[in-house]
């Protein structure tokens, strides 16, 4: 054992030294690896470590309310709670579940289902028991909350619309945003247009969790910023009144503007639809039913529906003719009941003619022949120029998405669209608001607003304007003495035996223009037939645009009754009742009967 062989000792020394150096090198390699992990790649692993331990839970913010000009809440939020139980030991889970079931009804088979889900769910992972707890259910759970060890109640909001059918087309609706925060975001209407103001900022809570997901402590929390409330210019009372009036017809639309500041007092489209289900759970059937409804309730007829404006457009033609000195107000044109252009005969609506007609009479009686003649002299370009000045062919900029801009036909448009040249007869049918011309009701109302506020820059708006904005609106005045002629003529329409005199003769004085726009070319022998003889979908659209009171113009009302037949018979009486409501207020009832009597007596 104790051999002291120096040879073997030095051999051993050599080998042992080599082995030690190898071990030292390997240890240094470990230090290098440690350096890479802890110094070079430290940041990456620090991030991974935080990802491991920190869960960010969003705190849902409250969306701003939408309030009418008269202080009625139109859209608000209902607080909802989501009830969930963390996956835990079976007996604890069973205990919590049965306690919950004793307070809110959970069917037995559902309880079994949750127990099955628990088996498949990792510990501390929440299982949703009920998604939308009512307030009543919430308070019942809150009462026994101290007995429950594994449940959590999460906050959420559902959008709630009051009077959704009347206001739906303006307010629009919301949907759950697609990202993980799942807050409400606007889909259409004011909800979409003012989404940035309404939406707010969600808060969050950073919670430290352990490896199995058990919440250990709150690290940090950021409170949510609730959305701003928005007040819109709609007067809830007027809106409801207008909707009730309009809904007596199958389909139609109405716009009421306050021309002093451009605010929209009411904007209706009939039929309306319930926006409440749209914001939460709408069934597929409900949705397809809405989409396939022949009356198209989803369409906002006041801003998305495009129609030939009919005689309402004569205002544009007459103003252009007077401004361009084609004719002076008092000059007359003889109406024989029709003209021949390009070999086609174009009839005045009054088959036996109006006789001698001046500018006033042309609007008062809505004489087609007069318009045909001045339009022939004006040419399409000038008509289009004036139509543009008065707001046709472009969006009015109202705060509802997807507004239509309509269509102003022109020589260039015809060439691009059909590759054929413009025909003279097209000018004259455009001048009476027919043919390819398409406008929206809000454009017609805006035209009246521009005329009666003497301001080409007039624009309708759903959001309360500050004084500065109102002043900006007044920057482009109409410098034309002919505006007076138009206003006088429009007054006569309603008060001096004009087309709307039967329904719109009032003390405060309505000025306006009726319109009936054909939806198709009349067949041989159909001319002069009563509209009631045609099936509904072939009848003319009925229009009336008006402004009142005469002395101090304040309100513009534009009414469109889809396939209503005649503007003077269908649209004008509705407008009259709305004006009465606007100007006389509660005395409306009384006046209504007066109007009816008046009409009856005139008919006699």
């Amino acid at each position, binding site marked *: 054992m*104790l*051999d002291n062989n120096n040879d073997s000792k030095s051999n051993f020394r050599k080998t042992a030294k080599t082995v030690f150096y190898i071990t030292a090198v390997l240890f240094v390699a470990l230090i290098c690896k440690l350096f890479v992990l802890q110094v070079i790649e430290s940041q990456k692993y620090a991030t991974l470590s935080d990802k491991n331990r920190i869960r960010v839970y969003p705190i849902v913010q409250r969306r701003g309310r939408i309030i009418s000009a008269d202080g009625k809440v139109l859209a608000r939020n209902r607080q909802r709670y989501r009830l969930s139980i963390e996956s835990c030991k079976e007996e604890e889970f069973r205990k919590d579940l049965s306690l919950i079931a004793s307070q809110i009804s959970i069917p037995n088979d559902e309880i079994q289902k949750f127990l099955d889900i628990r088996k498949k769910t990792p510990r501390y992972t929440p299982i949703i028991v009920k998604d939308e707890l009512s307030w009543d259910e919430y308070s019942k759970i809150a009462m026994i909350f101290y007995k429950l060890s594994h449940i959590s109640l999460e906050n959420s909001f559902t959008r709630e619309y009051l009077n959704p059918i009347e206001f739906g087309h303006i307010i629009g609706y919301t949907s759950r945003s697609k990202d993980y925060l799942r807050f409400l975001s606007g889909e259409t209407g004011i909800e979409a247009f003012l989404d940035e103001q309404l939406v707010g900022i969600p808060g969050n809570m950073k919670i430290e969790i352990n490896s199995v997901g058990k919440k250990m402590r709150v690290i940090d929390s950021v409170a949510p910023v609730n959305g701003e409330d928005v007040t819109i210019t709609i007067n809830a009372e007027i809106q409801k009144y207008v909707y009730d009036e309009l809904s007596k017809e199958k389909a139609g639309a109405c716009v009421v503007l306050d021309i002093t500041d451009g605010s929209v007092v009411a904007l209706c489209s009939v039929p309306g639809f319930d926006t409440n289900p749209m914001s939460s759970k709408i069934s597929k059937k409900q949705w397809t039913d809405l989409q396939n409804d022949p009356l198209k309730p989803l369409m906002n007829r006041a801003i998305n529906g495009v129609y030939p404006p009919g005689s309402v457009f004569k205002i544009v033609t007459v103003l252009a003719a007077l401004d361009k000195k084609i004719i002076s107000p008092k000059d007359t044109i003889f109406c024989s009941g029709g003209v021949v252009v390009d070999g086609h005969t174009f009839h005045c609506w009054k088959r036996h003619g109006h006789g001698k007609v001046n500018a006033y009479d042309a609007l008062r009686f809505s004489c087609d022949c007069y318009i045909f003649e001045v339009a022939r002299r004006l040419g399409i370009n000038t008509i289009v120029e004036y139509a543009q000045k008065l707001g046709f062919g472009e969006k009015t900029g109202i705060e509802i998405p997807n507004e239509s801009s309509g269509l102003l036909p022109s020589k260039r448009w015809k060439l691009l669209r059909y590759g054929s040249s413009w025909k003279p007869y097209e000018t004259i049918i455009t001048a009476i608001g027919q043919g390819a011309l398409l406008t929206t009701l809000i454009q017609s109302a805006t035209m009246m607003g521009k005329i009666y506020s003497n301001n080409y820059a007039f624009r309708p708006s759903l959001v309360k304007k500050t004084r500065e904005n109102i002043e900006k609106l007044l920057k482009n005045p109409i410098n034309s003495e002919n505006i007076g002629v138009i206003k006088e003529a429009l007054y006569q329409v309603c008060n001096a035996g004009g087309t709307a005199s039967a329904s719109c003769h009032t003390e405060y004085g309505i000025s306006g223009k009726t319109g009936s726009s054909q939806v198709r070319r009349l067949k041989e022998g159909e001319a002069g037939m009563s509209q009631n003889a045609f099936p509904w979908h072939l009848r003319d659209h009925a229009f009336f645009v008006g402004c009142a009171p005469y002395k101090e113009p304040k309100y513009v009302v534009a009414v469109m009754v889809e396939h209503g037949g005649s503007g003077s018979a269908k649209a004008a009486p509705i407008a009259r009742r709305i004006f009465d409501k606007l100007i006389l207020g509660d005395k409306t009832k009384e006046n209504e009967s007066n109007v009816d009597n008046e009409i009856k007596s005139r008919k006699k």
Partner: protein
Amino acid sequence: MKKIRTKHNRIFLDEFKILFILLFLLLAIGLVGQISANNGELFGTSVQNHILRIFSGILILYAVYSCNLRIFYSYAYVFYAVTLLALVIVEVLGVIRLGAQRWINFGLFTMQPSEPMKISLILALARYYSLLTPLEITELKKHYIPICLTLIPTLFVLKQPDLGSAALLFGTGFGVIFLAGFPKKIFATAIGAGIAALPFGWFFLHDYQKNRILTFLDPDRDPCGIGYHVLQSKIAIGSGGLWGKGFLCSTQSKLDFLPEKNTDFIFTTISEEFGFVGGCVIILLFIGLVGYFFWVSMKEKSTFSRLLCGGLAILLFLHTFVNIAMVMGILPVVGIPLPFLSYGGSSMLTFMVSCGLIMSALANKKI
């Protein structure tokens, strides 16, 4: 008599000063790591047991040191035979734990026979070579018996199955054979052949061992399963940064993202809290301890004690290296504890005995 005693005391303090400092630091760091792994709680946790094991370990260390090295020389083959028998018993009666038969139940305590086997193997090999003349050592056939002595327990441990301990026995055994003077050319050739034959060894592995190796080669293969442990360990170490997150401020280990945080992954726990600096200190202390073992082995006059100390140095090195490399994702996770730091009786016992043997060897030389 009195003179001898004073002389003895002086040696005890002077010669063993370095060993004691290294040992004290490692045990202290290990204790801090154990406290961290138990979230700072001392009582009623495994920290109590760990402290108990440190003290009983020190007693055993002293007991081994007090014995004359001649006893270990005389009984080397007996120790070997007894531990080998224990391994066989484990195979037959072993208590199944953690899916592997590694413990033998002695009634009062359970024991992993693969741990004492490591020391018994070194003793047996050292004993065998001490009787060979330098000439005999150059003969290849004289090495057949030591190779068999190494391979038999290795195969039993592999069968348990405990890939880590088997690899350590294998490595330690051949390390001693190499130190004893095995022809270097043949050794190098054998290593080359062994590496070439590695793929064939694949067929003898258990499914979980195959999985571990596959996951080691490609950690993304199973990030939620086995790869998860390694990934979480790397995240813990990496997120510690240069200075660490601070004592008891670890997140990975405290929030249980880290598996086996007080046993196999104790290095990770400490590195997360004390950073690169802490990790380096541990590695440097181990370099020091391994170096000390080698230094003692080189000072020894007898072949037996030289090979014994050298073998223990290799054992300590392999244990430390495999453990640290494994928690950093360099080697597959094979369940090897970190000497002196990891929680667990068997490992603590093995290395306290090792230190005792080293001290005994050093003391016997002087006397």
